[in-house]
Structure formats: C-alpha cells, structure tokens
C-alpha cells in the first residue's frame, strides 16, 4: 500500500498548483474543512492524516520512526514522490509546520512556499529562547496524559482551542479521543521534546508564518523568533485567539491566504 493510501490521503480541487494541507497534533485532515472550499477552487488539493491520526491511526504509526519529527517529514516526502508533484504550496498546522520545514530542507525542489500556522521549532525554554514550556510543566502534562487520557483531553482541548467555541472544542476532543492513548502520549513527547531550530535556520523555501495573538501552545515570541531566523519569512499575527485559528477563525486565516498565496497560482 502506498504511503498516501495508508495515511487516508485525499486529492480534490480544480486547480493545477498542488497544495498540501497537513494537520496538527490531535486533529486529522477534517481540520481543514472550513478552508478546503477556498483551496479547492484554486488548487490541486492534497491532504492526509499524519501517522497515528485519523481513523485506525495507530496502524500507520511506528513508535521508532515517528519518535522524531524527521520520520513524519520522510512520510511527507514519500507522499509527494508517490504523487509525482513538485513546487507545492504546503500548509502545515502546529506540528506539521516544522515537518514541512524539515522536508523542504531535504528536498527543496518539492516546495514552492510554506504556510505555517502556529509553528514552534522548540517548546521548551532554553536560555534566552522562550518556547513557553519548562521541563516540570511537560513532565506534569505527560503524567496526566498517561494517568487518565479522558480526563486529560477534557482539560487540554478547551485550553488549546483557546476560544469559547463549543463546536471546535467538540471536534478537537473527538479527534484526540480517536488517537490511541499510547500513540497520543508518544506523539506529544516527540513534539514537545523536539528541537527544530537548526531546521528553521536553513529552510531554503519562502515561509509565511501565521499565528494568533494569544496561543497557549506558541507564545508570540516564538513566531517572532522564527520570522527573524528563517532566511525568507513573513509573519502575520491575526486578530484571533487559540491554537486552531483555521478551525475557529477561518475567515481571518483566509484573508492572509488571499494576500500571500494568490500570486502563486499558475
């Protein structure tokens, strides 16, 4: 089975330019529902579920290989090679941001531009670098995840959604519950333990960063650090809150897409 098929890949849309939509931790490709019509009018839209996510996600998950962000980047490159596309517009949310950046470093010719929503190259504070988390806080998070996944989701989902949007919270909770708890725990260890700052320093592709003014997972300093560090980057801070603006404030996100992406259409 191809990697694209095993990750429940979908390819839709009327355009020629390929656009890859890659979701973040705890969601699946349905997270793009609000933005998908806009993309389908303009692009050749490719989406999939990250390993470990979506229905029966555990089947695609390899505890060794997906113990690193690079394992996901290898999956992404494999999909693009399978589909035989190049010069893609890549839209990644949350963990998929640095996955796309890593893939672009390894295979620059595959990517025309990267749009990274809620990106963070490192969640742990490190000296002057502010990632927003310290080790004690993360240990506490992993402990409560392992102890009672249900209870953890009930607290984590509203915090990450960050706005009083019952539907988004319900959607996010549903897809979190869809993950097998051990996979969810290992995935969050991989994300929160990652340090992709070197990747950020060498991304050869133009990058558009989008983040909300208030995001519990990604402090504003992180967006500013990425903007300053990535060789060719823009940062748009949108007037919204939470870590999932593509779900809770799609019109704000689309406004940025209109400005940043329409020039790329062939």
């Amino acid at each position, binding site marked *: 089975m191809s990697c694209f098929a095993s990750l429940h890949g979908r390819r839709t849309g009327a355009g020629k330019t390929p656009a890859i939509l890659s979701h973040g931790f705890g969601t699946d490709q349905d997270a793009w529902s609000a933005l998908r019509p806009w993309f389908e009018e303009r692009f050749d839209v490719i989406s999939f579920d990250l390993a470990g996510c979506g229905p029966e996600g555990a089947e695609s998950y390899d505890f*060794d*290989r997906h*113990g690193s962000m*690079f*394992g996901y980047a*290898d999956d992404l*490159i494999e999909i693009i*090679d399978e589909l035989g596309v190049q010069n893609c517009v890549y839209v990644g949310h949350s963990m998929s941001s640095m996955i796309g950046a890593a893939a672009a470093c390894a295979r620059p010719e595959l990517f025309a531009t990267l749009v990274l929503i809620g990106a963070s190259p490192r969640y742990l504070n490190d000296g002057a670098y502010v990632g927003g988390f310290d080790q004690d806080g993360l240990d506490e998070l992993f402990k409560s995840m392992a102890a009672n996944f249900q209870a953890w989701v009930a607290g984590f989902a509203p915090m990450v959604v960050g706005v009083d949007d019952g539907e988004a919270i319900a959607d996010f909770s549903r897809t979190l519950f869809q993950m097998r708890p051990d996979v969810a725990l290992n995935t969050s260890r991989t994300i929160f333990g990652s340090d992709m700052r070197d990747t950020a320093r060498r991304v050869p592709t133009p990058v558009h960063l989008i983040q909300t003014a208030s995001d519990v997972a990604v402090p504003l300093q992180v967006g500013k650090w990425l903007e300053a560090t990535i060789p060719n980057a823009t940062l748009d801070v949108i007037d919204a809150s939470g870590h999932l603006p593509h779900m809770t404030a799609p019109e704000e996100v689309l406004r940025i897409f209109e400005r940043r992406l329409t020039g790329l259409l062939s």
Partner: protein
Amino acid sequence: MIPSSIEALYELCGFARVACEADLVIALEVDGAGRASPVASSPPHDFSCFNLARSGVFDTKWSAIPVTANAFRLPTAVVHALPDMPVSLLFVPAPVEHAPQSGLLLLWTQPPSPAPLVEHVRLLASSIASTLASRREAVRQVAMRDQFNDLLESVPSGIVLFDGDGQSAMINERAAGLLACSPGFHRASELVAPMRALRERCDNHAELEAAYASQVRNVHYAAIQHWVLGDRTYEVDTHPVSGDDQHGRIWLFTDVTAELRIAAKLRGLAQSDPLTGLPNRRHFEERSAQILTAAGTAGRTVALLMVDVDHFKQINDTHGHPVGDAVLKAVARRCRDVLRDQDLFARFGGEEFIALLTLATSDETRVIAERLRGAIAETSVVVGDLSIGVTASIGAATDIPMNSAISGILEPLIAKADAALYRAKQGGRNCVIVADGPA
C-alpha cells in the same frame, strides 16, 4: 549501560570519516524491510530510526567509488545531520544475521577529492559487521534481562535464585519483603543469614530444620515445605536449576494461607454433619482407624458406644422436624460436653450417635455410658415455649485391638454394640447395656 561494542562502532565511524575525508559516517543496522537503526555516527549525532527501503541505497551495486547523491532519497534526518546538502555517498554493506542490509553510510557535501583511503574503506566491512552483531547481542541480552525482570516481578511468589557458580544470587521484590533486604542482585553469602532468620521465625521451625539439615550437601535436593509464619503459611518450593555449575538453586515462596483456609473449610464441610457440627459417619470411619491403631500400640482397651434417642419419631411427628432437629442438636451438645477431647463422637445417622473411646479398663465403659445417658435425660430440652423430655438408649462393646488386625475390628465392634443397643431398647429404653467381654 553502553556496551563496549557501541564505543567500537563510534571509533570505526570516526576512523572511516577521517580516512575518507567524509562529512558524515553512520553505522546502520538495517533489517530486511529496510528499517534502519543508526547505531553510531561520526560526528556523533542523536538519530532516530528511519526507513531506507525506498532510498535507492539497496538497489545500487556498491563498489569502492562514491556516487552522486541526488539519485538517492535520503532520510530527512540524515540530510539534517549534514551541514549542507549531500553531494556524494558511499555505502559499505556489512550484513549481519537478522539485519542483512546493515552497513556503513558515508556522505560528502563537496565532491570528494579522492582521498587515498576511500577505496580501502570496504576493508572495514567485516569489523563493522562483527561489531554490529556483538552490539546486537548485547542489546538482546539487556532486553532479555529486562523481560526476565518484568516476568520475575509479575509472578505472585517470592523468588530467590542462586546462580550456578554459587557466588551470586538474585531476589525479586516479594522475596525481598520476606527476607527484609533489597530486591535485585546479591552475593550468595549475603542471603544466607536472612534466609536462616526467616526459617527460624517460623512456628514449625524445628520441623523445617530437620527436613533441610539432612539435605545440606545434596545438590539435587528438591522439596516443597510449608513455612508457617504466624497467621501466614508459605509453600516453599526449592529445587536445583541448571546453571554454569552445580550450585544453581531456586527458592519459591508462595503465600498459600488463603488456599489452606479454603481447603480446611471444604474438608470440614465434607467431614461434618451440618446439623450438629459433629463428624459424619464417613469421617468417623477415617478417624476411628487412628484411635484403634494408637490403642493397639499402647495395648489399651477401646469402647464403642451406640447412642439412640428414644421415641424420636414421635417427637418429630408431634412437634415437627424443626423441633426434632433442635433435640438432636441438644443431645449432641450434651454428649460432647461430658466426653473428653480425645474421644471420637459422631452422628451415625438419623437419631443415632456413635462414640469411640480409649480406656484403661473395660470397667470404665459402663460408667461413661451412664454418664452420657444421664447427661441426655437430666433436664428437658427447651425449644421456644416447649419443654421436651428426652432420653436415649445406649449399647456398648469393648475390645483390645491387635495392631495386625485393625481393619477388621470396627465392624464386629459396631455389630456387638448395636445388638446391645437393641437389648437396651427392648429393656425399656433410657438404659445402658454393655456387651459381654472383648470381641
């Protein structure tokens, strides 16, 4: 624990990188499906696993000459470990059992000026393969030991394992709790004192000492003993286990307190009469053999008494079965109260009871039988508002058992006592008849 084979692999990678002027050298353990575990690298780098199945590395016929890298799909992690995009690469296959696609991967970010040693790097293949194999074995052993430990702690028994060399020993957490020392590895000599102390704390310690003392020098000794520690009983199984030498031995401590309690309870249920709590007829027959044997050995007289409640059918018919049951319970209690602890007293069936006693002389038989009769008849049995006068007839017989013929004694003795009982009934009830002389 870092096995020395890992250090050797780091050194081999470092040597290859310097000799070949490469930018990155990775020792890879790769299984048949292309799943690659980077085991060591130079410069050292913290790699996670990746898959090389579709990288092209295994579709290439490798010679001693590096080839251009852009024909390969290298894992993202490998590209990121380089300061720049790779330009050339060389793979030195070093197949290992169970990891047939293993080898050394060398990468250059500049077209390599042919370093003089590149063509000889293949000579490292067999060293790399054997080092990968020994590292794999070391990892396997660690994994096995971890698995063994998990197993050891999941067993509901205390385990003390002495190695075959007689020098070292290992105990799990349950055993550590019993022996009041820490779980894990110990010198064998350190466990001798705690083991002895535990045995000496046992209520049946003298019996255990005797059982084990005779076997001290026997390396093949195997036994299961009950160690009674206050209200807990442990089944302690010891037997030799194969080891490097002859001294391998395991001790398994299993708490069987609950099982023993249940077994005792079941045995009691099977042996006793549910109404009176007395031994039932079957249990009487089992126990009587012990009494007869003991009396035979001591040359003492035994007396057998058959006790039958008078007019019991009438009590039942007049007052109903619950009252009849209460009368039987009262009779049982009154008899038991006047007998000695060592006397066997059982419900033989219906309203008939049986006693087997050891006596100094047959003359005592009548005295005891009269005492029973009197105890039954002395006061009325009160059941609720009813006060029922109860009497019993008793037939008795005596014998002096011979050890050679124990099994044949009981039946004629019962028959004689039964005949005497019949005469007591005929003689007007509420009386004692002792059959003449020993059978």
